């Protein structure tokens, strides 16, 4: 402590105080203030530019997202339309198939019933003709003299050839 106090020079202390005060004042006025101000300005500028770039990037991203969304919507719409068309087509095909089937069935039924009735008519016709023929044959047989077997057979043949099975 004694050594310290002995080394301490009050004169130097006072001179140093004055010089340091002056130095601080001058440095603050002529150096630090302008330097720090322009550094702050520059930093603010950089920050602003960065923020602007950031904003531009987010805008761009938003735009891209929008585009994507629209594209997706369009695609979905197209798909929907295609699906719908396909459904319609399938439905139409199924409908027409059904219609055709119904129609065909109907026609088939008609044809069957027609055939049936024709058949019935034909059978009735045959029946009546057979009856008439048998009557005529019997008539002729009765009219002719059935002396011999040959004559009888000839007669049957000629009669049979007369019958035109239509």
């Amino acid at each position, binding site marked *: 402590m004694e050594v310290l106090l002995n080394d301490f020079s009050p004169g130097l202390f006072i001179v*140093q105080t004055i010089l340091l005060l002056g130095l601080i004042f001058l*440095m603050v006025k002529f150096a*630090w203030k302008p330097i720090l101000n322009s550094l702050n300005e520059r930093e603010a500028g950089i920050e602003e530019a960065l923020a602007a770039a950031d904003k531009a990037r987010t805008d761009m991203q938003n735009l891209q997202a929008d585009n994507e969304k629209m594209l997706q919507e369009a695609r979905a719409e197209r798909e929907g339309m295609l699906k719908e068309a396909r459904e319609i087509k399938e439905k139409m095909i199924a409908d027409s198939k059904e219609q055709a089937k119904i129609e065909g069935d109907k026609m088939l039924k008609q044809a069957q019933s027609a055939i049936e009735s024709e058949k019935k008519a034909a059978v009735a016709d045959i029946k009546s003709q057979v009856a008439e023929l048998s009557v005529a044959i019997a008539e002729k047989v009765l009219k002719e003299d059935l002396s011999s077997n040959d004559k009888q057979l000839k007669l049957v043949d000629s009669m049979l050839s007369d019958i035109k099975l239509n």
Partner: protein
Amino acid sequence: MMQVSNTIKTLLQLLILCFSLQSFAVSDTVPEGAVSSKEQVDEYILHHLKDSHDFHLFSYTADSGERKHVGFPLPVILWSSNGLATFMSSEFHHDDNGRVIVEKNGSKFVKLHSKIYELDAGASSVNFDEEHHATNAHKVLDFSITKSVVGVLLVGLLMLLAFSSLAKQYGKKKIPTGFGRVLEPLVLYVRDEIARPNIGEKHYRKFTGYLLTVFFFIWVLNLLGLTPFGFNVTGQIAVTACLAIFTLIIYTVSGNKDYWMHILWMPGVPVFVKPILAIIELAGAFIIKPFSLLVRLFANISAGHIVVMSLIAIMFTLKESLGVAGATGLSLVLSFFITLIEVLVAFLQAYIFTALSALFIGMAVAEHDHDHEHDDSGHEVADTEDVRADFI
């Protein structure tokens, strides 16, 4: 840039002028000043650590056996009992033992161990007691332009020139060129690594100017101390005391309500502890903090100078045991590496002084928006927020 190169030219001219000013050679009866023995080395180092009244560059022994000193004298300005006295330091003829008496304004002055004493009225020569203290002389207020003052002026001038040219550069362009490109990161370093984290985002702007000035002042002076010109400005206790007291004044003046509250009437402790804590806190704020600041810088720089000079002195002190080549080689290697470390210390001490100043200022202006926990003995428990605020 033009300005800087002009400055450098002027400085060089000044330097050449210094060397040509080797007019005041003195013939001593004893070839004093030649350094070869251990005692002389000790003496020389102690002498170097003190401030000096003339700018001494080197000494040599002329062919005639005379000891010649090369350097230039500096003005001595004294406030004696008979008023102001001014003369050039050459009038002491390099005497440092109180033998040469200079009479000015009716007062008699002698230089004794780098200090100027005024002889008491009626005395015609200095009497010494057994411890070599003067008995019939007293110290005077010494405003001389000593070597340290020259160093301070030189550094101040350099700082002003360098940084005002940097400031001017910003007027023209956004990014500085040349030497400014070296200075700008340093300014940013002090602002972003020292001022901002230690003081806090809110208040740091006010104190950045002071911190920057002090940082560069100490750093450049520390580095100047490593040059062969032999400045030892930051190893002068008056200089470091001045710096520490500036910091003390700043944090005392800018202390807010919370700061004074924590010093004078610590919240959250029993009433009977409060006065005791107040005494401790007051001693901490007004004595311990500035004292540690001033002593740390002073001691580190002085110790560095002592170590470097002692290692250089190995050349003489170990000449007998190691031979001339061995002693010189050892001395050169050791002093080279220690000087490298001293370059680091020069920066570190500037950093620490500035950082601690910023920390103390930050403590004084901190706003306590959260409650502190206090432990049983009444000490504040620093919560994580405090620690972070202090050390980020």
